[in-house]
């Protein structure tokens, strides 16, 4: 089965997607970007883009759900934190292509394999950020909440998680952007995605620019959407005249780093 699966893998650079006939010199010469070819062949990228989107969304959603459960579980059981951090850390260190091949005998070729691996990669970043976010909740609100008679659950959902939200979303942003990048390797698990056209012809510049461009655009869009979500979900943050905010402004304007007295 493994052999069969491997046989089906595309080999780098061997599949030509260039239609060298009937095209002008641009494609022949492999120019920086051939607009004519791009206009004619854009539909090639629709399916890979949609596949890529599904891979990213499903993996991040699954990763978030799992990491969130782990974080909530370890929140009042601090001894679990090193265990979970270690576990997700080990998963994070497995090289992605190796991960796909390790999974092939168990889950076979296809989207499932890719999603399992991609999900595993998101766990570390998301988990650590949720844990850090919860740990950074200032003691005042926590103490006040407890002292006013909030139960542990009310405190977690009503105070701690909302206050950890900016850090949780920061983790999601990093995880999402890196998943968009790693998902280009999902093609080696037979799951398609933007890796499909990229590895179909690594030498054709126009192809790389389009496929890579879509991936970059996707990453930037997710990042912006999550940032927007944070702004909407944490309106109180804008109300805070915190030093971090002032500092950022100062740096943006090229002003010297403020000194604290």
């Amino acid at each position, binding site marked *: 089965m493994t052999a069969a699966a491997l046989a089906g893998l595309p080999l780098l650079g061997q599949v030509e997607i260039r239609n060298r006939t009937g095209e002008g010199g641009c494609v022949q010469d492999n120019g920086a970007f051939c607009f004519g070819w791009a206009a004619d062949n854009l539909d090639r990228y629709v399916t890979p883009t949609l596949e890529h989107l599904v891979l990213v969304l499903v993996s991040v959603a699954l990763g978030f759900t799992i990491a969130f459960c782990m974080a909530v579980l370890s929140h009042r059981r601090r001894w679990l934190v090193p265990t979970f951090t270690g576990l997700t850390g080990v998963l994070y260190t497995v090289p992605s292509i190796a991960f796909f091949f390790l999974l092939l005998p168990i889950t076979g070729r296809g989207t499932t394999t890719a999603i399992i691996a991609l999900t595993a990669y998101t766990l570390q970043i998301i988990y650590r950020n949720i844990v850090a976010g919860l740990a950074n909740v*200032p*003691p*005042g*609100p*926590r*103490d*006040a*909440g*407890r*002292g*006013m*008679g*909030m*139960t542990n659950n*009310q405190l977690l959902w009503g*105070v701690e998680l*909302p*206050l950890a*939200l900016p850090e949780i979303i920061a983790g999601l942003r990093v995880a999402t952007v890196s998943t968009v990048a790693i998902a280009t390797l999902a093609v080696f698990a037979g799951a398609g995605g933007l890796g499909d056209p990229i590895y179909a012809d690594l030498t054709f510049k126009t192809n790389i620019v389009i496929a890579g461009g879509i991936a970059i655009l996707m990453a930037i869009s997710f990042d912006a959407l999550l940032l927007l979500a944070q702004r909407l979900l*944490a*309106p*109180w943050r804008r*109300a*805070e*005249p*915190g030093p971090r905010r002032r500092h950022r402004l100062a740096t943006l304007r090229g002003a010297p780093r403020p000194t604290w007295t």
Partner: protein
Amino acid sequence: MAAGDSIRGNQNPSPPSGERQKALSVSYRDVTKIYPGQTEPAIRDLSLELPAGEICVLVGPSGSGKTTAMRMVNRTVEITEGDILIGDTSVRERDPAALRREMGYVIQQIGLFPHRTVGDNIATVPRLLGWDRARVERRVVELLDLIGLEAEMRDRYPGQLSGGQQQRVGVARALAADPPVMLMDEPFGAIDPISRERLQNEFLRLQAEIRKTVLFVTHDIDEAIKMGDRIAIIKQGGRLAQYATPAELLMSPADDFVEDFVGADRALKRLSLMRVRDIDLWQAPLAYVGQPTSEVRAKLEGAEVPHALVVDSERRPIGWLSEADLAQETVPARPDSGPEPILDLDDVMRDALSDLLQTETQYAPVTDAQGRIAGVLSVEIISEFLTSPEAKVEERAAAERPLAG
């Protein structure tokens, strides 16, 4: 000794608006706390009775266990031995969350929820108690008014308020469900001195109206004296050193530790607890404008105050008669020395003494609310008061004291 209460001023609170829960007494019964892994108790055999409606201050150096003592009341710290009763009910028999919802809780870091608006912060406990929306609304509006914040502040986030405003919201939030008991852990500790003074005064005014049983923790003895109806001084090792009214504490410290903790200026601190009306004033011979000076001279014989005070027909002080004035036939309308400083019966004694010292006068007329003469205050009277037998200070003849003059 009533002096301790007098500064509180308003003894007749305005009638309560709406239903109000009765304040409950709090009593510590031989309470001991030993933290896990420790051999020495943080609090040792503490017994205290806090009468309903009074402010009791727990004060002591850091590490004395005063916060631990407070936190056992709402069980954010569990009692190792002994018991605490709220009214007649043991806190040990109560569900901790339910118990806490019945107590106001204010902490030094204020602990407002930064992600919730002022209104939502204040509504925390009422919502936990499941009040209906309309009732919560009414209560929030009522409390904003009580703490003197404008109604539109309710939609602000805590990050948009000043430190003083945040602290007020913290107090309002603690009062939201009208709890019979309030716990306040260094509530003004993180506020700048000027705002702190104002917030303290505001809280005392508020307390005169709402009459909660307040357990107040501080490390600042001046704050304790100012805020407390009673003060419990706790020393290292969680032992109660003394539990008394501020006046008692200042007059008769139980031991060297208390004396030291209260400070070398405890005599002056006592003065800040009193008003001029709390002391027995002397009477000066009065002279009316146009009266023959011979009559005045006769009154001066053996008088408490060896100078005659000129007053108008309404008995308002005009000035002091000098020897030259007395040599004239009748009392002049403009005596040589003016009456300044004129003190008021409601002046704080410490300020009155300061006025006397500043103007370098020996005697100052004291007037009532209508400006009529009520008596005469001198540095001598104050020093005699401070060294009187009831003050349990070594008896010394007032004349020997170099202060007067």
